[in-house]
């Protein structure tokens, strides 16, 4: 493994305390995937252009491909694997109900971004949905279903 700093980095990932001996500059994406084996977060571009690597840092979206793990020290990281217990988040339910994914590769990033939106904006307007998800690319072209699924998830969310 890449040579570590003298002191380990402590952070919480999906609610689990982790102590990692890694280069503090290592992007969170590679910590998640290569070190922790959480492969739900994807590499799509490495330059914050596509959003496939989106995760939550203390509830806010960060693009993990360019977020050094040092920034996550002492904080909470949530990945797609930790978004819910067994796929029960309203977004995940809506995605399944509407058959949103095609190849599925971008969808974790789409969902994580949408999740942050719904937390701040439980009934987002179509415009708000587009603005928040503008940075998440889908090459298969599932956009029209993504839009519909975010609205459906808003309906499914209690309160």
């Amino acid at each position, binding site marked *: 493994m890449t040579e570590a700093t003298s002191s380990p980095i402590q952070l919480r990932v999906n609610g689990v305390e982790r102590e990692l001996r890694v280069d503090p500059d290592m*992007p969170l994406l590679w910590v998640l995937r290569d070190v922790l084996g959480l492969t739900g977060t994807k590499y799509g571009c*490495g*330059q*914050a*252009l*596509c*959003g496939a690597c*989106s995760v939550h840092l203390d509830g*806010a*979206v*960060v*693009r993990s*491909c*360019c*977020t*050094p793990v040092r*920034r996550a020290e002492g904080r909470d990281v949530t990945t797609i694997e930790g978004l819910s217990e067994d796929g029960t988040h309203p977004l995940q339910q809506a995605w399944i109900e509407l058959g949103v994914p095609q190849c599925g590769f971008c969808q974790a990033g789409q969902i994580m*971004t*949408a999740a*942050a*939106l719904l937390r*701040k*904006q439980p009934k987002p307007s179509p415009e*708000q949905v587009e*603005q*928040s*998800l*503008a*940075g998440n*690319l889908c090459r298969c072209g599932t956009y029209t279903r993504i839009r519909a699924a975010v609205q459906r998830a808003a309906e499914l969310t209690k309160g």
Partner: protein
Amino acid sequence: MRCSSQTGPWLGALCGPCCLALWLACAAPVATQGTTESPAAPAIALPEVAPGALRAPAVFDAVPDPAQRSSALFTELARVLLHPRCVNCHVEGDSPAQGAHFEQHEPPVLRGPEDRGVVGMECESCHQDRNLELSRVPGAVGWRLPPRAMAWQGKAPSELCAQLKDPVRNGQRGLADIVEHSRRDPLVAWGWQPGFERQPAPGSQAEFAALVAAWVSSGAQCPEAEDAVPVNIGANHD
């Protein structure tokens, strides 16, 4: 030298070394398109400077008239303000630009209610506290858009000057605060350490701050409102 047409003529004008001489000539009452009838003042030619460099304050000692000297100092420091590294974010609209030619920011981002982006696409979702080389993402502490009141895009030096001095639009800053901000602010500093093959603003932060200080101490005069598009505009950046 190529002019970046999208930001209006001022950008190009202020960055060309030869143009500064022209500007001073235009700023002199008689050298403009015949608005006054004062006796002709000779045009002052300042030494040429490379596009990536800033003239030092001492260079402007050659300008005899104090008001003119002060406003010339401003015109010089405005070359930094209107450089892409600054003006890409000092925009009026909802989206910053990127690159050397005011290109669309990719991915598409929006200002958001607090100038920090919208939910899920906050500035700091991608931009870190420092530049990243492999992912090419620029960064500095507190990366965000300046408020619309601090938009500089497409503005003439005269407008910029008035804007910078106006506490309503400059974040309630006095002149001394402006000097300090120029010297110390990390986002300002970024303009000269932009990372990955991005062309820095002219000169250095220290030189810029020195010009700001010299401008303030010389009376913080603003250049006259320009009423003509200068010829021979050029740009030093690419």
